[in-house]
C-alpha cells in the first residue's frame, strides 16, 4: 500500500504506527486544530460519556471543549439535522451515527436533505458534513447491528462514501472528507479498529475518488474496500501457491469510485473480482461489474465475478456469522477459479 502512504508534500512530521481508531481520532483532532469550524456531535462522543462507545472521539472534548464536541440525545434525525443546519452557516460538523443500521432512522435527513440541498438550491447552499458510522460482522451482534449499506448511499446523488481499510487511509480520508464541500459518509469497520498500520505523514490527505493499488499483480484484479480489502490481502499467499498473481485495488472511496484505476487494472489482468461484505445482490459490486463488463466488453478473459454476503440478514450464531462475509479463503478460491 505504499502509494497510499506517500504525501505529495515533502518532509511532514511522521505519525507513528497507530491503530485505525487512533488514526481516525487524530485526523479529527488535527482538523479541529486547523479549523475552529470543525465540530463533532453524536451519541456519547464527549469525554464525560467516554468519547464514544468505542472511544473513537476520546479526548476531543477535553481538548477542544464540550461546545465543539457535543454528546447528543439518541435522536439520529436531530443529529443529522443539527449537522446540516450548522454546515449551512459555515461549520464543518463531523456527526456520528453510531452504527450503520441506525442510518435507517436518519435517511430522510441524509438523502432528502444533506445530499440534495446543493442541487435544489441551485448551488446557493451546500452541506459540508461528515457522517461517521461503524459496522461489520465479527462481534456476534446479529441482524440489526452490522449491515453494510453503502450501496444505498452510492445510489444517492450528491453525497460521497468512503471506507478505509488501514490507518493511513483512515487518517487521510477523514482529512479529505472534512475538507470536502459536500456530505461524506465515512464507514468504519468495527473489528478493524485495533488494527495497526504503517506510519504516515501528519498532513496526509487521501483525495476522495482515488483508489490505491494495494498490491500489484498480473492475473486477476481484485477490487475491495474496508475490512474485506484486508481479507483480499490475506488471500495472497493461497493465490500465489496456486500460481495466481492478483492485483488488489483498495477502492477507498466507494462513491464516486475510481473507474480509471479499476478499469486499467482489469484491462491489464483480463479478470475482475469484486469482494465486499454487503449483500451481493444489488451491492456495490453490481455497479462495478456492470461498468467493467460494458467498458471492457470483449477484452476480458473471464466473466466478472462478485463475492458478497448471501441474500439474508446477518445471522447471530457464530458459524453462520463466520460464513456470512467473504473471507480470505473464499476470496482466494474465487480468484483462483476465475483464473482457471
Amino acid at each position, binding site marked *: 500500500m505504499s502509494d497510499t502512504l506517500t504525501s505529495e508534500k515533502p518532509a511532514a512530521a511522521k505519525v507513528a504506527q497507530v491503530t485505525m481508531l487512533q488514526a481516525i481520532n487524530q485526523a479529527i483532532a488535527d482538523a479541529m486544530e486547523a479549523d475552529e469550524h470543525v*465540530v463533532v456531535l453524536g451519541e456519547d462522543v464527549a469525554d464525560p460519556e467516554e468519547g464514544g462507545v468505542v472511544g473513537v472521539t476520546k479526548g476531543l472534548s477535553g481538548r477542544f471543549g464540550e*461546545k*465543539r464536541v*457535543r454528546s*447528543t*440525545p439518541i*435522536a*439520529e*434525525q*436531530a443529529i*443529522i*439535522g*443539527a*449537522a*446540516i*443546519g*450548522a*454546515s*449551512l*452557516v*459555515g*461549520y464543518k*460538523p463531523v456527526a456520528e451515527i453510531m452504527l450503520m443500521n441506525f442510518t435507517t*432512522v436518519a435517511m*430522510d*435527513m441524509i438523502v*432528502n*436533505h444533506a445530499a440534495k*440541498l*446543493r*442541487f*435544489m*438550491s*441551485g*448551488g*446557493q*447552499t*451546500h452541506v459540508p458534513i461528515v457522517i461517521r458510522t461503524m459496522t461489520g460482522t465479527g462481534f456476534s451482534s446479529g441482524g440489526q447491528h452490522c449491515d453494510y449499506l453503502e450501496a444505498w448511499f452510492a445510489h444517492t*446523488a*450528491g453525497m*460521497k462514501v468512503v471506507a478505509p481499510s488501514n490507518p493511513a487511509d483512515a487518517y487521510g480520508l477523514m482529512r*479529505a472528507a472534512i*475538507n*470536502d*464541500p*459536500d456530505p461524506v459518509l465515512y464507514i468504519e469497520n468495527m473489528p478493524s479498529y485495533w488494527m495497526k498500520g504503517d506510519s504516515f505523514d501528519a498532513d496526509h490527505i487521501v*483525495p*476522495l475518488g482515488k483508489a490505491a493499488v494495494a498490491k500489484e499483480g498480473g492475473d486477476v484484479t481484485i477490487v475491495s474496500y474496508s475490512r474485506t480489502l484486508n481479507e483480499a490481502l490475506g488471500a495472497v499467499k493461497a493465490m500465489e501457491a496456486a500460481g495466481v498473481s492478483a492485483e488488489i485495488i483498495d477502492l477507498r472511496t466507494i462513491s464516486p469510485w475510481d473507474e480509471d484505476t479499476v478499469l486499467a487494472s482489469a484491462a491489464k489482468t483480463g479478470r475482475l473480482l469484486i469482494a465486499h461484505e454487503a449483500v451481493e445482490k444489488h451491492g456495490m459490486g453490481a455497479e462495478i461489474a456492470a461498468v467493467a463488463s460494458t467498458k471492457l466488453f470483449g477484452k476480458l478473459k473471464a466473466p466478472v465475478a462478485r463475492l458478497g454476503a448471501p441474500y439474508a440478514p446477518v445471522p447471530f450464531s457464530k458459524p453462520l456469522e463466520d460464513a456470512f462475509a467473504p473471507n480470505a479463503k473464499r476470496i482466494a478460491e474465487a480468484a483462483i477459479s476465475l483464473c482457471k
Partner: protein
Amino acid sequence: MADNIGPDGETLLGIYRRAALLKANDERSRKVITTGRLVMPYYSYRGQEIIPSALCASLTDDDYLVTIYRGIHDMLAKGMPLNDLWAEIAGRVDGTCKGKGGPMHLTYPKKGIMVTTGIVGSSMPIANGLAWGSQLSGNNRVAVATFGDGASNIGAFHESLNMAAVWKLPVIFLCQNNLYGEHTAYEKATSAKQIADRAAGYSIPGVRVDGNDPVEMYRMAREAIDRARAGEGPTLIEAMTFRFHGHVFGDADGYMDKAQKAAAMEADPVPRLRRKLIDEGIATEEQLAQIEADIEESIDAAVEFALASPLPELSELTTDVYGEAA
C-alpha cells in the same frame, strides 16, 4: 407578556404591508395556474398571512428561516424578492435556485431563507442546526422553523424539540395550525388538546395564540425571539389559523366542514387588519390602496420578469450535484 413590546402603529402597518403582499401574491399565483400560464404543485397559504407577517416584524435579515412546501408566505414575509421567487416557480434561470428547486425548495440565504423542505417535519432538525451555528459563533441570530399541525405528530418534531431544549438553542418552533393535515382533520390525527401543550414535555415554553390576530401574534413571536436571543432557549408557538383553499391547488375540499370554512373565510384576517388600521387611524384608505396598487404592480412586473427569463440549459441537469473540492 409585557405590554410595552408593542406593536405600535408603524409596526402594524408594516405587518399589513407584508400581509397584503402575501395575499395578493397567493391570489395571483392561483390565477396564473388557473389560466395555465404556469404549472406547478401549489400549496395555497391564503388565510395564514398574518403569522409570518407578524413574526418577521421582529426578525432581521440575518435571522434564519426554515420553511415548508406551504411556505411562500413565510419567505415573502422574510424578504424574498418577488422577481427571484416568480422566476423560480416558473423554472427559470433567474429563479433563486436557477429553476432547479421550484416552489417546494425555494432558498434565499441573503435573507436567511436557508431551506424549504417538502418533507413533513423536516424543517425542525435543520433549524436546530442553524441555531446551533448561532450558539457556536455567539452571533445572536435566531432560527425559526415553520411547520403545520400535522407535522407535530411526526418523529422529527419530537427529536428536535428535545434536542433544542437540552442544548438551549436559539430556535423558535412555529406551528401554523390550520386544523388540517392534507385531508385529515386535527382531532383525527393529533392527540394533544393543543399542540402547545406538548412543550411541557420538553420543559420549554409553549403557547397557543390566534395566529390571525396581528397583535397577539406579534407579541408572542417577539417574546420568543427575545428569549432566544437572550440565550434562554427555544419556544413552541402554536399559531391558530385556517387554510382557505384546500391542501394543494386542485383539491376539491370535499373533506372540509363547509360551515367552518365559510366562517373562516368570512373572518379573513387580512381585510380585518386593514379595517383595524383605518379604524384606529393608523393609515388612511388612500394610503392602503396605494400600498396595494404598488404590490399589484410589483407582482405584475415579477410575473413578466419570470416569464421572460430563459429556461435552464440541459447541462444544468448535472451541475450543482457536487462542489469543487478545496
